[in-house]
């Protein structure tokens, strides 16, 4: 390792990770996101409604009013952020590494070189499966913060990507 010199490399000539074009998630995936959101919102909305019908004395009128305003605002924000979040997500497979971009307020880009991948998993959620989508999970030795989860990929394509990744891992060491 010590005799590994790289003086001659011009850093401006290196392939730039920030200029990679990212592939968007499958358009159908937004439905999966929305359906799971509807489930959450339904619970958040239904419980107070039921309570207000059967036990209105639980809170004072003012609290009910605040709840009545906050819950719809919260729900709408949740939906808006999820849609933006979906649009911001993107992935790219380069020759030597995999990139995943996500984040609403901050743009986060995580890069994992193939020769650092430990194992790969293919996850199909209950709703995703209905739409024929799957999630690829790529694990490294760096703990959970350095793992990539790419949702919303067509099952067949996901299977191919997994195969490609496994091939890349094998070649590298």
């Amino acid at each position, binding site marked *: 390792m010590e005799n590994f010199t790289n003086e001659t490399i011009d850093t401006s000539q290196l*392939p730039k990770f920030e200029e990679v074009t990212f592939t968007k998630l499958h358009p159908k995936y937004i439905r999966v996101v929305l359906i799971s959101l509807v489930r959450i919102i339904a619970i958040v909305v239904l419980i107070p409604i039921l309570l207000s019908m059967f036990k209105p004395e639980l809170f004072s009128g003012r609290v009910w009013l605040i709840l009545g305003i906050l819950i719809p605002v919260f729900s709408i924000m949740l939906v808006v952020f999820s849609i933006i979040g979906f649009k911001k997500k993107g992935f790219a497979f380069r020759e030597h590494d995999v990139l995943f971009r996500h984040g609403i307020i*901050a743009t986060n880009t995580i890069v994992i070189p193939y020769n650092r991948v430990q194992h790969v998993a293919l996850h199909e959620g209950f709703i995703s499966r209905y739409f024929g989508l799957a999630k690829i999970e790529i694990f490294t*030795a760096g703990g959970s*913060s350095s793992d990539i989860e790419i949702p919303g990929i067509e099952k067949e394509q996901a299977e191919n990507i997994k195969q490609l990744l496994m091939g890349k*891992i094998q070649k590298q*060491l």
Partner: protein
Amino acid sequence: MGADFSQPQRQSSIGILVMFFYTLQQYARALWPMIVIWIFKFDEINKLYLTLGMITVFVGIGVVSYLKYLNFTFFLDAENEEFIITDGVFNKTKTAIQLRKIQQVNINQSFIQKLIGVYELDVDTAGSNKKEGAIKAISHELALELKFRLLENETIKSEIRTEETSLEETEQKLFEAVHPFIKISFLSLLKVGVTSNYGRTIALLVIFFSTIYENFQNFGDENNVYKEELGSYIDKNLVLQTILISIAFLFGIVLVINVIRIVFKYYDYKIARQKGSLLLSFGLLNTKSTIIKPEKVQITTVTRNYFQKKMGILELKIKQATSGEKEERKSIIEIPGCSETERDSILKLLFHQIPQKGLMLQPNFRKLIFSIFLSIGLPLLGFLAIGYWLEAVFFEYSYVVPVYVVIIGLIQYFKFINNRLFIHDNFIIKQSGAWDISNDIIEPNKIQAITTSQLFWHKKLNIGSITLHTAGGNIAFQLGNYLILKQQVNLWLYEIETSDSNWM
């Protein structure tokens, strides 16, 4: 021997029972408050409904565990050299593990598994401490066979590992034979004891004084008549004296406890070299010994504060790559009270050269503003809000506010001033801390993954953050020059991807 693992297969059919008990356990854990209530209200409950309910629950769990059993398969893909586990009833997961990446295969038996007579097989790869694959119910012969097959491909690796274990076993003997090249003297340990753990000391002081003050307050409240007389009397004569004495007393106690703790833990600290590895042994009552292999080292941290600098001592922390839970606790190794020359010789052994600080990056002043907002602004707002709307009594404690603002402000300011990232061809060094200033040193080839992050309103300002993930933890640097950071990321990626460097 010769079981066929090439076809997807299920666990032992008796495994349904294991699944049943585990699922039952899971539900019981989640629903225990309800169960407790039922037990207390046992007499009031309609017995017929209870039995019916119980039957439904048990049948339900039975069906779930049967489905789990049906949907859990594992097989060895000989062609691609992979071990593949499929599981999940509604949410399906297919995990593929390269055989060459498998570090450990453990065969365990829990109480329930013992009752039923099956074993559990865990597959573990490097890094994360969670198990990558677990088969809950498998017969012993099959488990052994599978373990053999899983580890078959890595004869080389297992050879290294046996060497390693034998090294660890004979560590003690070896140590006697090898002449230690660094010994940490009793005096150094005393110095460490006196100069470290100020945070804890201050916290203790604060708690101590707040309770004392509280007691005074209560005393006053109960006897209003005495309050004024006593208050003025105490004010003038005793308070200052008592406070000064108790500060000195408390400092003394904390120092003594600290010194005793350090001496007990690190007495007779010896470091020896052995085939390029470091052998450490220390401890007063029970001598601990550990081994550091340079190639396994992920993050090396050098920490010192102002007093330690004056006394010429520093502390080294070394984080090794972890695999499996057993090593987790052993993985952080501390070397207290080294001198500078000792530090250099240890670093030389770990890195083959003394780490150099190259290009220096400093965070943008917005980082200071943000951390002051988080640590001073928000708590102050909360304080005001509670005071106004909930408990006006809170404002009696207003005198704490300026003290808090000054102390926290100073800490945040020094944290900001000391925060730096040094980038050299062979090293990345992150400096941080307010009082105890630490330098985290990593080599670029230890990086597992890189995350870059930028807030959208920082795009024009050209500032952004970076996190370097290693098998020993993360190194993060916020709000630096994003252009330079991105360039460095490209360079590090290039270096990692063009060489098959061994990171552990």
